[in-house]
């Protein structure tokens, strides 16, 4: 097991190398460069070619791509992701600054989805073909297919403009810092309601269908039939036999979902002006802010690789039939 884990960890290195090379090349192949883009759009005062090259040099962009990649790699090995082209602040600082907002939103949404999805899915599986199963299934599919940005706008119009019940923008009210402890957190809470809902309903639908599917498979197993045959009471069958075995594939899935916790939702974060990582990434791509794009991509890649590994290890831990050598 330990041996396996170490081997897998070592394998991460070439994989990660590959990912960063490809990302670096792709973002550099994308047309336009930061110098041009920083000055395009609203203020496109003309830049003489000489001044333009001076700027390229300032950002180190006059070197060939492979040279720049290795300069970047060397720095990353010391965990230095460089500074943003846009505001010259360290990339790590920019990401860390945005992380709490995204984590707040995503962890909350993730927990809600999980807590609701497992019982929903399990219940639907136990009552397969019942009215609950059919109607619930239809409702969840409908939810799953509703685009987030559209739902978000409808909710904003209804709860924000018509009813004036909920704030529709940002993470806190203006001057929230002057509020007392409880009013402040209440303010934070009401700001979270709409974005959290929009972020949750899709994954809730998906997760609960997944749980239902995996429970159905478990229910049809021989050992469940045996348990029933030997007269075990239904509650015990469900909790000790069905539920636990259902969780094995879910566990793997959760492992894969972990990285999305920090990557943030680009669309929702921008609709709700949520100051998260998704927002940062989107802005960075548009502005060709290479250091920020590379920093975020690398961190996400590491997260994905690590969580796949963790999911695999958890799998072995949860299911004694699986062994790694």
């Amino acid at each position, binding site marked *: 097991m330990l041996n396996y884990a170490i081997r897998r960890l070592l394998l991460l290195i070439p994989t990660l190398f590959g990912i960063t090379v490809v990302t670096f090349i792709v973002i550099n192949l994308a*047309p336009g460069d930061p110098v041009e883009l920083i*000055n395009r759009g*609203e203020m*496109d*005062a003309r830049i003489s070619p000489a001044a333009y090259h001076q700027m390229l040099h*300032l950002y180190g962009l006059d070197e060939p791509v492979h040279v720049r990649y290795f300069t970047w790699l060397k720095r990353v090995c010391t965990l230095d992701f460089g*500074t943003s082209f846009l505001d010259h602040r360290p990339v790590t600082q920019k990401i860390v600054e945005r992380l709490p907002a995204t984590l707040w939103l995503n962890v909350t949404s993730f927990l809600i989805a999980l807590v609701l999805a497992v019982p929903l899915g399990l219940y639907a599986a136990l009552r397969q073909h019942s009215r609950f199963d059919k109607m619930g299934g239809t409702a969840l599919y409908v939810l799953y297919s509703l685009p987030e940005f559209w739902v978000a706008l409808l909710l904003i119009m209804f709860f924000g403009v018509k009813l004036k019940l909920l704030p529709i923008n940002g993470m806190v009210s*203006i001057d929230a810092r002057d509020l007392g402890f409880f009013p402040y957190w209440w303010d934070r809470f009401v700001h979270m309601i709409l974005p959290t809902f929009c972020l949750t309903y899709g994954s809730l639908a998906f997760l609960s269908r997944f749980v239902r599917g995996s429970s159905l498979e478990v229910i049809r197993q021989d050992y469940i039939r045996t348990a029933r045959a030997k007269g075990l009471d239904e509650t015990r069958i469900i909790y000790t036999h069905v539920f636990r075995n259902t969780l094995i594939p879910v566990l793997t899935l959760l492992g894969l979902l972990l990285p999305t916790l920090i990557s943030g939702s680009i669309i929702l974060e921008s609709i709700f002006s949520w*100051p998260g990582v998704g927002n940062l990434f989107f802005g960075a791509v548009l502005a060709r802010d290479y250091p920020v794009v590379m920093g975020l991509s690398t961190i996400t890649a590491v997260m994905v690789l690590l969580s796949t590994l963790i999911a695999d290890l958890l799998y072995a831990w949860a299911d004694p039939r699986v062994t790694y050598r």
Partner: protein
Amino acid sequence: MRRRAGLITCLALFALAAGCGKKTETGGQASTGDSTVAESSTPRDGGTVIRRLDSECKTLNWVLYTTAYENFVLRHIYDPILDYDEKGNMVPVLAAALPEVSDDHLRITVRLRTDAHWQDGTPITAKDVKFTLDKVRDPKIPAINKAAYFEKLDHLEVPDDHSLVFVWKEAFAPALFAITQLWPIPEHVYGKGDFLTHPANRKPVGSGPFRLDEWVSSQYLSLVRYDGYYGEKAHLDRIIFKVVEDDAVALNMLKAGELDEMRATQVQWEKQMNDPDFGSRFRKVDYYFPGYNFIAWNCRSPWFSDKRVRKAMTLLFDRESVNTKIYSGFARLVSGPFYINSWAYDKTVQPLPFDPPAGKALLEAAGWKDTNGDGIRDKAGKKFEFELNIISGSNTAAQFAQLLQEECTKAGVKINIRQIEGATFFDRIDKGDFDAAMLGWRLDLDPDIFDTFHSSMTPPNGLNHGFYSNPIVDSLLVAGRAEFDQARRAEIYHRVQRIMADEQPYTFINTVPDKRPIARKIHGVKIGPLGPYDFWPGANYWWIDEGDGRVAAKP
């Protein structure tokens, strides 16, 4: 120094930076909205205005900022040396009087007020101005957008603490405009430490009537009145800039009372801002920003080297129906390369009419005939079939192009419309690598168009992407930028416009107003040539009706 956009009207983010009115004949002309601003109430102190920022600010360092949003905020925190008022007249702000220009036009002397001081109490001196200019021109500092205004500046002399002498390499009429683009920052703050990452970039020490109170990253910026201001104090307690990236969300916030003003899209303006409730709470302000849409013809291509062909293309393009169909009549046709409200624009020059028979006749005269009966004109074995480049993602540009395409097909000219992604599109334009392209210019208030039409400015040297070349225009453009007398300069540019109306280096299309709803409870709103903000004092002296208690005042 022009700013370009792939069809101005289609880009969501425009509006502009530090521009200010250079003596426009008429002020900001209202086209449809109720821009007339009758004031009944007297100024009242207190209250908060909440404005929309389309995007997060990166910095509040005047030297480093690049977007219109940053400029919105900076205009309250910093004062310019000189600026233009809402009528387009130059006014001194940090300067004690208007600048003096030497007889040879090479030396421009500006005296600063002696009572002005930074928001930490330190006096504002000529050294701060010099420091700022040095930073703008420093090759290690990314401020090329501002440095471009000072390319013809030789050096700046500082004879004493409150005098500045700008010495130019040649008589250069846009020099005065350039000086209005220089807003000093304090040397005693920025002089120490790394300029690019200076803490003051996010906590500026300004010179204006408002100071930054709080900046919550990508949420909002809160400015409060600076009571120690050397000039007339502001009325508002606070101005809050909320970051709202999504247009639809912004409109909802406006309606919910969480914003007091925003920039509206065409559809919002037409369809979503007409109910009586909206009308009773907001006035709709629209104004023509300097700029226009056009099709650039590549004069080096086999088709468009002949001015008769370029003219024929304009005659074949039903620009009026573009206005009515695409802009519901909200746009104006233009006939030349200047801002329609500027003294440089000759209003007597009419746009060419939509006249397909005349267009066809010109094509015949130029030798383009359909000799092989395939429905496409040809000449010396070369078919009249070309590529019209448009920026992808712009519906408006696509509709423009299709209108032209339809009419041209009937006239035996084949157009292949090609949509290209933004950066690649501009890359091709910059290299002059296209047959025809649909584009938009954002202009400065100074009418100098040397960079876009002089024959020495063809790629890769400048912005004459279509390789237009006319010796008379060349000499007029040189004369125009050296002429300090406005009437004589206007005459020069009127001649340029008349020549271009005949030669059609571009097919000049139209100019589209910017549109902003502004809450009626706000008073003191003046509309300059560039709308409600880009002039002195802009929104600095707004006041509002009795407070609505939305946001608390700040001590």
